[in-house]
């Protein structure tokens, strides 16, 4: 497909995405089927979703419903079998750190790099000079609570610290979109809450767009502008809940308590379905 054909408007989805500049991300009828030796797995089926610039969009759903797969498609690491993924109106053809940075579910730190060097990895790939990328990585250490651990190697860090290094590595490259796959999954409750507040602060100050996967309803309600609930595999969108309340949120407010109950019952149904043979 030639990128500059004027007949573009023949494809309604793409034309819309081009016209509506606020929609930074558009998933259109996206599906993914993994072909393995032991049979095919329908991971994601017919997912359509638009995310405006500056949103904090949380995806929640039972284990194995295709959340990581969806993030992989947004990050250009997984090619969809059907539909298309558009960022700023252009189809995602492969990983592009200028558009999106990923915090992986498995932190995936490089064992031969110190915490600081891991955080600076993306900048190194982009060819940023050593002194500048060290300085940039250093600045992140404080808020990540890793100041005393800059020169430690991953095996010398706790699970939660490793996850924070992975978050720092994604934040360091200043991409407009941050894809976070259960970034606080390995953290204890307190650190989790603090990191959530910190992330919220960064998000509000920098106006980045966050796509966030979590299993924690509390986290979803405290942080997101929108929660997307996915069905059991093959993952489809079950419901979308808007959360226009201001931050910081009073989690005990009747509004949020009602929403929480609604989300919980939906996720419960899907999780039960996911566990059926």
């Amino acid at each position: 497909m030639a990128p500059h054909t004027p007949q573009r408007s023949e494809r309604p989805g793409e034309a819309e995405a081009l016209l509506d500049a606020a929609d930074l991300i558009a998933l259109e009828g996206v599906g993914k089927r993994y072909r393995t030796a032991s049979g095919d797995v329908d991971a994601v089926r017919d997912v359509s979703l638009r995310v405006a610039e500056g949103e904090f969009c949380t995806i929640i759903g039972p284990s194995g419903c295709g959340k990581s797969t969806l993030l992989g498609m947004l990050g250009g690491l997984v090619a969809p079998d059907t539909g298309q993924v558009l960022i700023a109106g252009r189809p995602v053809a492969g990983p592009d750190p200028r558009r999106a940075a990923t915090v992986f579910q498995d932190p995936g730190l490089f064992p031969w790099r110190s915490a600081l060097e891991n955080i600076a990895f993306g900048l190194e790939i982009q060819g940023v000079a050593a002194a500048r990328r060290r300085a940039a990585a250093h600045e992140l250490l404080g808020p990540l609570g890793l100041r005393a651990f800059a020169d430690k190697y991953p095996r010398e860090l706790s699970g939660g610290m490793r996850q924070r290094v992975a978050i720092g590595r994604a934040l360091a490259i200043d991409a407009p979109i941050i894809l976070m796959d259960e970034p606080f999954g390995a953290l204890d409750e307190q650190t989790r809450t603090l990191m959530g507040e910190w992330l919220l602060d960064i998000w509000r100050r920098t106006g980045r767009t966050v796509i966030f996967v979590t299993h924690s309803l509390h986290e979803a309600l405290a942080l997101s502008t929108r929660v997307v609930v996915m069905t059991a595999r093959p993952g489809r969108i079950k419901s979308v809940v808007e959360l226009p309340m201001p931050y910081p949120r009073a989690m005990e407010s009747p509004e949020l308590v009602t929403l929480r109950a609604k989300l919980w019952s939906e996720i419960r149904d899907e999780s039960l379905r996911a566990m059926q043979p």
Partner: protein
Amino acid sequence: MSVALVRLGLLAALLAAWEIAARAGNPALYVPPSAALPALGALLALRSYPTLPAHFLLTLREVVAAYALAVAAGLAVGFGLGLNRTLGRAYGPILAALYAVPAVVWYPSLMLFFGLDAASKIAFGFLLGFFPITLAVLAGMRQVSAHLVTVARAFGAGPVTVFVKVMLPGMLFTLVGGLRTGLALSVIGVIVGEILGSKAGMGSLITHAYGLLRTADYVALVVVTLALIVGCDGAASLLERRAARWTA
């Protein structure tokens, strides 16, 4: 410190046992250290074998040539097979099977092919060093975490960057281990080649002394050859430690 002491103690015990055993038997055949030491002195003073430096240097040169070829070919074949799935599937198992064949069976044909001079020694040293290096590259590449490669790609790394920043560091330990084994085997190949048939080099001196039943000189020559081997291995282990510090 304590490691050095233990080693020294072991060496002393071995020498003592050797001395006692040799004296109990025939001292002309079983050279005791008390006789080998003067022979070693004579050898190093270039009295027993005045051409020793030339032979030593020849062996060293053969080792360097054999090892350089083994490293170049081992890395090329290893990465070639490792990066190309089809080639790897086709040739990897054959390579592993060939490695299991005692290499000495190839030596007669190498001598027929390359003659009695340095070329056949280099070829044999190469052959022995080549396999562990190639197989270490293949094993190392299999070790590299696919997830880390994905992470690097997500941050914009292309194939070359992935290779340099993820594959190489991820496999360095195994690779360096293979390089070290390869060096030891290249040295062994060259010296065994010289012992089996040659006109020059440490191996030929050893065969000469042994053939004339100059057992004390023979032992002294073996000691000098051992020093060469230990020196090579020491250099390799230094490299290995540096790699360990870098990847740790």
